[in-house]
């Protein structure tokens, strides 16, 4: 009971994920700043931003549904945190069951749908536009992402993340067999996190703040926080599925390797956001369905052939 | 790189429009012709069709201190060099025929004149507010009317 509570609240639950989320944001901003010849924020900046947002007045347009607008970030935050619980951190797996990958993928989609709803309930013009865009984007990246992520599951013959990691200790990291799938997973992750260059739903120069234009104060702070945590959970998931060969190593070394892998992922995400321009929504749809989906299917075909 | 053969232009405008139009040595760096306001549209047509000159730089309106009862309007055209058409309007009837059908680019300049000086332009659709607030109901701000 006490142990379960510890898992929930501290490691690998709430506290750990929030700290990781803030660290991720800081690293990301710092990296981006250095790519742009700036100094970048100090380490406490993400926390300071969060505290500032939490202390701000909470406003909504007249006629907006306050209850739903407040529930949406809470629901998505808990969905993301729950997803995080099932993902092994450096090989440490408190909760695991066969099929948890599907649960994780489902829970990871909750914020996107909530984001769409947040746009609709907050009644702003830009919110509605941004919400519509987020749904369009969802359909473009989600299908290739799901197909790609089923690659490791088929190869590892398990639908649990821990099981897939187990399989990799025998067969070697899956990134070797599925480099294409790894890239697709990263593209899908960028789309999921609405990061540059796939920040179409929240493109500042077009739809101001996207769905969150009218959201302020604590709610906005929660939204920002949950997106950071989502990024961390996504990174952990991709690392475990494609680079999960840590069982070979002694415990302290496996933690080190895991941290290095995470940093590499952060660098990849930062570089992509630094060097690519935002796509137009029709360009994204074209990319998703004409390029990513066929590539994902190709990868799956290859994986199935390997399995046989 | 002058492309304006001024004397020839003045002659042709005179012949084609059949109006008073007197060139005078008014504005520096610029050929200047005084024309009656009523003939503006015809002159504009000739400029465009015969001389291929339709870069309108600006429309200036001003009141001279010694002649406060009239508004002077200057159309500044350019083709390698500047050429200006000067006309005067009495304050009681500030009406000019719009040249936007020939030259859509004159739209903003006409609207500016309409709002700031109260000049009305015939032959174009209702002018929606451009510079002044939507609820502006005072006289045109740049026009000084001495009663």
């Amino acid at each position, binding site marked *: 009971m006490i142990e379960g509570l510890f898992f929930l609240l501290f490691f690998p639950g709430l506290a750990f994920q929030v700290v990781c989320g803030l660290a991720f944001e800081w690293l990301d901003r710092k990296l981006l700043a250095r*790519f*742009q010849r*700036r100094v970048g924020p100090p380490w406490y900046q993400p926390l300071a931003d969060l505290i500032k947002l939490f202390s701000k007045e909470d406003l909504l347009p007249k006629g907006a549904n306050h209850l739903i607008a407040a529930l949406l970030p809470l629901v998505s935050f808990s969905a993301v945190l729950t997803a995080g619980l099932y993902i092994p951190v450096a090989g440490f797996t408190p909760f695991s069951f066969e099929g948890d990958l599907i649960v994780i993928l489902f829970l990871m989609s909750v914020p996107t749908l909530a984001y769409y709803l947040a746009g609709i309930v907050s009644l702003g*013009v830009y919110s509605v*536009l941004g919400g*519509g*865009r987020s749904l369009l984007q969802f359909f473009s990246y989600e299908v290739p992402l799901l197909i790609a992520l089923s690659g490791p599951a088929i190869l590892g013959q398990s639908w649990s993340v821990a099981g897939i990691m187990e399989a990799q200790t025998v067969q070697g990291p899956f990134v070797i067999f599925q480099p294409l799938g790894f890239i697709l997973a990263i593209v899908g992750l960028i789309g999921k996190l609405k990061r*540059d260059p796939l920040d*179409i739903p929240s*493109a*500042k*120069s*077009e739809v*101001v703040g996207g769905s969150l234009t009218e959201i302020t104060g604590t709610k906005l702070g929660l939204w920002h926080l949950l997106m950071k945590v989502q990024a961390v959970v996504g990174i952990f998931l991709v690392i475990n599925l494609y680079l999960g060969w840590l069982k070979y190593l002694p415990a302290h070394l496996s933690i080190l390797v895991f941290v290095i892998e995470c940093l590499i992922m952060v660098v990849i995400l930062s570089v992509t956001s*630094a060097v*690519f*321009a*935002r*796509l*137009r*929504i*029709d*360009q994204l749809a074209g990319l998703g369905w004409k390029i990513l989906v066929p590539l994902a299917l190709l990868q799956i075909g290859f994986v199935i052939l390997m399995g046989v | *790189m002058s492309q304006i053969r001024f004397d020839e232009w003045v002659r042709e405008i005179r012949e084609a429009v059949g109006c008073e139009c007197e060139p005078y040595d*008014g*504005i*520096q*760096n*610029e050929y200047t012709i005084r024309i009656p306001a009523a003939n503006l549209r015809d002159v504009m047509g000739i400029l465009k069709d015969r001389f291929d000159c*339709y*870069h*309108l*730089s*600006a429309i*200036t309106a*001003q009141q*001279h*201190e010694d002649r406060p009862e009239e508004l002077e309007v*200057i159309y*500044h055209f*350019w083709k*390698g*060099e*500047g050429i*200006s058409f000067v006309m005067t309007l009495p304050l009681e009837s500030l009406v000019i025929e719009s040249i936007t059908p020939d*030259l*859509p*680019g*004159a*739209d*903003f*300049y006409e609207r500016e004149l309409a709002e700031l000086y109260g000049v009305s332009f015939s032959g174009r659709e209702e002018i*929606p*507010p*451009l*510079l*002044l*607030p939507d609820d502006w109901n005072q006289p045109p*701000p*740049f026009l000084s009317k001495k009663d």
Partner: protein
Amino acid sequence: MRKITVPIGPQHPLLKEPLSMKLEISGERVLGGTLRLGYVHRGIEKLAQQRTYVQNVHLIERICGICSHVHTTTYCSAVEAILGIEIPPRAQYIRALMCELERIHSHLLWLGILAKHVGLDTIFMHAWHDRELVLDIMESISGGRVSHAANEIGGVRFDLDEENETLIRTNISKLHDQVSGVLDVIENEPALQARTRGVAPISTDLIRQYCMVGPIARASGLDVDLRRDDPWPPYDRLDFNVITHPDGDAWARTIVRAEETRESLHLCEAILRDLPGGDVTVRAPRKVPAGEAVTRSEAPRGEVFYYLRSDGSDQPARLKIRTPTLPALSLLPEQLSAINVADIPVVLAGIDLCIACADR
């Protein structure tokens, strides 16, 4: 699909200055829109009539925060034309040098803004970093980053000494490298091209009908540049290429401005090479005899037009200013129809808006 009206402005992250557009949007498609100006109308034309010619130099400088020097240059040459004085050749060259530096700075600023609007913040930062070199030059020779106060009636305020010239030379050769770097990136960046190619093309015919000027006209194949066609000295003695592009879309505007930046760098070098000696000012009387004058200059955004009438006192009787953004704005509603929502930033950036200029 349901039509909604989306307001862009007066406050919007897209706009650095207030301008109001109301756009009809259906789904992701823009159907059309209307435009309102006047949010930064400061009545400068009227204010100028209440100040002396000397004070007006500084008032005029504050019309625009980017192309301030070309405004004062045009104003001063109008006053000088009525006074009938000719400024010394060295002053002419220094004025032209400042104009070209300003063009480089304006175009780099613009490239950054375009990149920012399409979500490419890295290019934005890099272009503005390079622009900082130009601002450094201007700050060290004139004393101000943006408001240079370089002109006065009858010449320029400062002279270039040895030290300044070396600074300009070194900074310009540095700029050559860095600008080539940034321009290389822009010209070879597929993501940027994907966003700008074929967006909101303007035909040459439309350009002529709407009296468009500057880089926008040149990007639609209209070969017009006041520095060549109606030059004030020393441009009639300088040799440079006028860049045109036949396509007329946002990409053509990018290329034209990028190439012009290079051309201006060469011009700066040529000006420094040919810089004649002598004085930089002649004495100008405070009172200007009665008369009228028109002057035009090629600002970074196109033709700047000044009409000045003097009634013999020390204050202008009428000062009419027409800035290049005004014709560009008159074509904006035309351009903002039948495009995607995502193209709005590109279209707006392509115009190189300067609302403060347009409103005056």
